[in-house]
């Protein structure tokens, strides 16, 4: 039955989220095309560049926000409004219903986050490539094309430079980044679901209660996450020596990214356990 639930959940959610995320792809392609032209080469084009940058940023934020909000609304509508009478009377367990929504919601949220990062990277790449072409920097273009041709004056490889800045080799950095995005997406989706489930415990104004729970959980998790990520790096902020500032960024990334992933994994566990407990408990449709 979970397979069938997943099939219908996928069909239902994709109807909205597929075009929305294709919008990010389209926006990226348009952005890359614009950046590869000479349109911004003159100083007079600065206001236009700022305007387009603002438009792009706002659009991506909107697409990302809508994706997450739609995932929450879809969960709420399917399970706790009139449609709940259909889903809660299907011959399936409540946990199966929950899992189908969690899998599909987390998948789309992750796709959205990855597309957003890839979109920013693609635009950065297009801008860098065009700038290198204008300034006639062959090695820079080569580096951007295959990432390994360029050798700096002190014969340090591009990988090594990357590691010095980001603390990881490019491949490991991408893996860690993807892991962080996926875990934070799952935790965000679960946080919304948990808030909605907590809202159902209240007799009246359940939707308002859900929003209240979401805000409360969000604030608490943000404070905790900040403490977990900043406290271990406190020595980096306090140490003013030259050696320390040289390795500040790489040390920061090295400790922050794994700490962020571990924090998200702990939050996922807590949110998941609480959600499963609540969804198994009872349903009281209005």
């Amino acid at each position, binding site marked *: 039955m979970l397979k*069938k639930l997943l*099939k219908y959940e996928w069909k239902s959610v994709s109807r909205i989220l597929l075009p929305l995320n294709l919008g990010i792809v389209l926006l990226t392609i348009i952005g890359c095309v614009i950046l590869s032209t000479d349109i911004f080469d003159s100083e007079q084009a600065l206001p236009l560049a700022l305007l387009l940058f603002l438009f792009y940023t706002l659009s991506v934020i909107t697409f990302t926000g809508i994706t997450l909000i739609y995932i929450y609304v879809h969960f709420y509508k399917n399970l706790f409004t*009139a449609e*709940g*009478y259909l889903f809660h009377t299907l*011959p399936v367990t409540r946990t199966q219903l929950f899992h189908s929504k969690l899998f599909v919601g987390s998948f789309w949220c992750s796709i959205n986050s990855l597309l957003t990062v890839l979109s920013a990277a693609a635009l950065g790449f297009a801008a860098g490539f065009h700038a290198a072409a204008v300034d006639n920097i062959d090695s820079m273009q080569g580096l951007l094309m295959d990432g390994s041709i360029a050798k700096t004056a002190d014969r340090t490889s591009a990988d090594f430079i990357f590691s010095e800045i980001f603390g990881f080799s490019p491949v490991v950095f991408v893996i860690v980044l993807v892991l962080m995005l996926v875990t934070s997406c799952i935790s965000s989706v679960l946080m919304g679901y948990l808030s909605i489930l907590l809202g159902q415990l209240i007799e009246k104004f359940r939707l308002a209660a859900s929003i209240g729970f979401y805000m409360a959980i969000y604030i608490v998790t943000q404070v905790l996450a900040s403490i977990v990520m900043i406290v271990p790096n406190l020595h980096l902020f306090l140490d003013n020596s030259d050696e320390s500032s040289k390795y500040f960024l790489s040390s920061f990334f090295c400790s922050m990214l794994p700490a962020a992933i571990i924090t998200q994994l702990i939050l996922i566990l807590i949110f998941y356990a609480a959600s499963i407990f609540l969804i198994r408990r009872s349903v*009281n*449709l209005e």
Partner: protein
Amino acid sequence: MTLLKCKELTKKYGNHTALSGINLQIESGHIIGLLGPNGSGKTTLIKMITGVLAPTSGTVCINDKPVGPESKSQISYLPDHTYLNPSMRVRDIMDFFEDFYEDFDSMRAYDMLAKLQINPNCKLKTLSKGTQEKVQLILVMSRRAKLYILDEPIARVDPAARDYILDTILSNYDETASILISTHLISDIENILDEVIFIQNGILHTHAGVDDLRQKEHKSIDTIFREVFKC
């Protein structure tokens, strides 16, 4: 054979008791009218039987099994409002029911749609409210369930449609199955009922056979209802 058993079923909302200590047994092969004025607790009882509302205390069993996936596979439930996604096509909803309910007879469903001249390719939101009600009824009655629970199936449709709905109910249910119909339009359904359950202020007032009650009181069920629930 006992199909539905409610034991000391109670539902409270804060200090308000919506349903109190309901003890009820329904045998298979009967059509039962669940009758009571607005706010008497009919829908609350139905919601607890179908598992969309948790009782404060007491138990519900369908074929000796508590409410869960197994009991839900045996109940075909028509709520008192539209519960389908309006952006779905009728055909997609048929596929959905066919996928989830092993007892769904799609041939029967499409046949009923054709008789009512409802285009399966139409989206629900493009249909009138009455037609949407008919689609829901077709879905529910196209299952070969053990227990059909219909909450106010005729309240929001015109008299001509009422006849069609009652005819659909009677001609589509299995003789070994039972139907629990909640309504306050008693005169419309009195002739098809085998038993009646009167609920008043959340308490089970009467549960008796229609013929027995008529003979005992020398009145129609509609008249008895009006006397019992006189304001």
